[in-house]
């Protein structure tokens, strides 16, 4: 598993792609081995890539919509070719509900579900799931949470019994809370040692500010995790784990006749009641852009993270934005990666991404670059962002980005887990259940003008937050010379720091 060629480990890796033409004329400069021992004979059929075969008919699987008597929606997709069933319970609440000073509360709560119920301790839960060959996970996201389990179809019933116990009856015993708190503090310490996650976290802080829950890591900070009490956790679970705030997604080798009575038995007693209204969050105040440096003495690479508030998943221009970003930095063959990696060899790979939620999440353009070329790399990032904002995309870029988005749809549904996850996301983001039915048409409808407009309106390179994690004494002077803004130092948690390096004033 060593040494992959992949773009960036953070992302969906090299999936979903786009542009760049086939070279029309083949010019091989300095052909390597003319005296090959015995070369492959050339043939005319090799001259051009063969056209596609008979077009593939693909229709995204549409879930059957069912409901329990208490109103809990159940989305079911039957697939009987493999004896597995994936079950996901989604909530429309996540880090967005973390109260001020308690960043990480939702994530902490989700982490604790399988650490003890009224009738089972953590060890028993782990052992019972594993005895049944079930794989369990639970985590909170920006504005949603998901608890998932995959079971062999033969064991679906006993697995769902434990699953429901974990979801509905977690006990949050003090000893378990304290044990998991220590583990979380350890995880946070580990993340603070990793320049890549530091880059992402500090960027979020600069973009969203200290009053917005998205300004903090999902797992929380050292301070916030210490401040979270057992009472907070119990209250969070009580407030947001409600059938009116949840939905179940089941994909795999089962059917309604088998499934629904089991679900009714396990989740039917779950009391209804509307969840509280989510608080509106205050965004960071607009101010002159600064360039934030986080010092990592001696680092052979700098992590460059650039971003701003992006788009919401239901924004009217979400599809033009997706196409635009595919060209800009999502595909391997994107402008950013082509520049920073293929042209300049400054990086192993860079990317850009829109995290779209019910509200606008961040737009992020990022990558690790060789320390000596930090300022040059940053300048190239800014150049590509400005070019995308003010320029046009070519017909070729547009066609290739659209093709790539459309042709990769079937792969979204390759496994039961992926399919359950795709629909949990659609539901969590408040999108219609026929989202993937209309997806292709909506991609195909995107015009060059729409992409240009999306770039013009959505990208603001002149204001974007810039975070660089690297050896600040070494890189600060040349970054300063780019005149992108005043340089400020922060620590790895994103807190302002007194300037230590002479370079930063």
């Amino acid at each position, binding site marked *: *598993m*060593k*040494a992959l*060629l*992949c773009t960036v480990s953070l992302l969906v890796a*090299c999936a979903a*792609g*786009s542009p*760049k033409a*086939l070279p029309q004329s083949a010019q*091989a400069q300095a*052909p*390597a081995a003319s005296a090959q021992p015995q*070369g*492959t*004979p*050339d043939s005319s059929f*090799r001259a051009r*890539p*063969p056209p*596609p*075969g008979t077009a*593939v*008919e693909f229709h995204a699987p549409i879930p059957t919509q069912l409901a329990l008597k208490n109103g809990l929606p159940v989305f079911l997709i039957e697939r009987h070719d*493999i004896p*597995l069933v994936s079950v996901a319970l989604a909530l429309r609440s996540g880090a967005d509900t973390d109260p001020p000073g308690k960043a990480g509360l939702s994530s902490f709560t989700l982490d604790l579900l399988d650490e003890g119920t009224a009738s089972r301790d*953590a*060890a028993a839960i782990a*052992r019972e799931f594993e*005895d049944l060959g079930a794989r369990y996970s639970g985590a909170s996201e920006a504005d949603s949470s998901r608890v998932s389990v995959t079971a062999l179809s*033969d064991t679906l019933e006993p697995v769902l019994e434990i699953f429901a116990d974990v979801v509905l009856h977690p006990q949050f015993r003090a000893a378990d809370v304290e*044990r998991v708190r*220590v583990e979380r503090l*350890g995880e946070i*310490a*580990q993340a*603070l*040692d990793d320049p890549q996650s530091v880059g992402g976290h500090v960027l979020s802080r600069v973009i969203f500010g200290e009053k917005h829950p998205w300004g903090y890591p999902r797992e929380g*900070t*050292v301070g916030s995790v210490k401040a979270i009490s057992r009472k907070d956790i119990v209250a969070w679970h009580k407030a947001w784990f409600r059938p009116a705030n949840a939905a179940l997604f089941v994909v795999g080798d089962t059917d309604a006749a088998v499934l629904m009575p089991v679900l009714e038995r396990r989740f039917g007693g779950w009391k209804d009641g509307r969840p509280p209204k989510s608080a509106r969050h205050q965004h960071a105040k607009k101010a002159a852009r600064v360039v934030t440096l986080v010092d990592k003495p001696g680092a*052979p690479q700098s992590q460059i993270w650039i971003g701003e508030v992006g788009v919401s998943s239901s924004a009217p221009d979400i599809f033009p934005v997706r196409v635009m970003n595919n060209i800009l930095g999502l*595909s*391997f*063959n994107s402008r950013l990666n082509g520049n920073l*990696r*293929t042209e300049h*060899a400054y*990086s*192993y790979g860079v990317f850009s991404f829109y995290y779209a939620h019910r509200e606008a999440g961040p737009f992020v353009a990022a990558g690790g*670059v*060789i320390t000596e070329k930090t300022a040059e790399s940053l300048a190239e990032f800014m150049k590509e962002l400005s070019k995308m904002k003010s320029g046009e995309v070519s017909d070729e870029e547009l*066609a290739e980005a659209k093709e*790539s988005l459309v042709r*990769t749809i079937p*792969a979204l549904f*390759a496994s*039961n887990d992926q399919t359950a996850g795709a629909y949990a996301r659609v539901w969590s983001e408040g999108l219609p259940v026929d989202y993937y039915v209309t997806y292709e048409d909506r991609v195909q409808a995107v015009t060059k003008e729409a992409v240009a407009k999306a770039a013009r309106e959505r990208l603001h390179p002149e204001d974007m937050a810039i975070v660089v994690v690297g050896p600040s004494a070494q890189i600060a002077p040349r970054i300063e010379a780019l005149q992108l803004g005043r340089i400020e130092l922060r*620590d*790895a*948690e994103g807190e302002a720091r007194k300037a230590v390096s002479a370079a930063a004033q």
Partner: protein
Amino acid sequence: MFAAILIAAAALPQIPFEKYELPNGLTVILSEDHRAPLVAVDVWYHVGAVNERKGRSGFAHLFEHLMFQGSKHLNGDERTVFALLERNGATNLNGTTEWDRTNYFETMPSDRLELTLWLESDRMGFLLDTVDQKKLDTQREVVRNERRQTLENTPYGRAEERLVQLLYPDPHPYFGYVIGSHEDLEKASLDDVRNFFHTYYSPNNAAVAIVGDFRPADVKPLVEKYFGPIPRGPEPAPVTAKTEPHTREIRETMRDQVQLAKVLIGYVGAGPLEHPAAALLMRILAGGKSSRLHHDLVYEKKIAQDVSATWDPAMQLGGLIEITATVQAGHASEEIVAALADEVKRLRDAPPSPEELARAKRNLESGLFAQLESVGGFGGKGDQLNYYEMFAKDPGMFAKNLEATLAVTPAQVQKVAQQYLNDEQRVVITVLPEQKQASAGGGR
């Protein structure tokens, strides 16, 4: 255990396949799977870091990057190659280099299969037509950046490398840790590229697995058309390097820019398919929250932040066994070294309980079911078939090995522990925080 009864009836994971060889020696493995209109092509070249010559560590992987820089009929650079695949809907598109093998794979909409065969055959047959100094120099830098990013600028990254260097000391071909050293990467020349290609990238040293939504009758003529004309190459010389057994424990302490100490213990383990018990042994140690290390060190004693135990099943000169634990704040690394040694000793001294073993088997099996949901990509069906073809010359060994694994007895697990996990055979690396750091943040 009620679970054991429930599961017994469940069908085992399976991969139906058909295998044949072209006259030029290329092994072809076809496996139909009509769940989705997708097809995965996964080409394994039986070459890896193990074949690197002295002074050229990292070369097999650098070469892998060059395979993405275009070929005679797809002239351009990596943008050209990725663009073609991406706009045709490729997912799970990548290349990977390991100790003993290198692979190239992509999952495509099934109507793009011919295009994929065209591309893979072009780089197998016509790579050298367009490789030049500029491409080599660019990818050399990209790879050095990869080394900086994934190893030098990643917490504990250098310790992982050091562990391998101590277990497989120079001049062992695994010493280079696949990614290689900056010094050796700088030496790689176009001559090296040509020689490597001619020596190892021939059809008789490769196998192509095609898995997904196609009909073999349609695909066989296409495979013949595109790959058939590529001439057979020389048979690569067998690997002669040997792994010297370790007879004395090695201990090292390293410093890194980290807050938590970490302990890494390595052993040279079994080769591919030598012991079906090896994978189960790792699961019993650290395969899930109820595994021994997790339960005892993380849950009960609370001295470890996280634990892991892995065995690499694809190293012909002895698979790396690595047991790690991050030390929980307030505890000493020596405490962890002792606790890990105790756990390993327990496995040598007594067989695991039947329940533990059954649980390990069940999770291995359900994990395989999940992996087989993917036709391609990391560990998907294409990789499974290719793995067994490479190490057993029989993709059907997948099923046989699974049956053998499910039949493993507690005594066999103990025997493997006794063979490979002795204290005098181990390398212990302790990573300590570089300096007293002001406890980060503390902030809010």
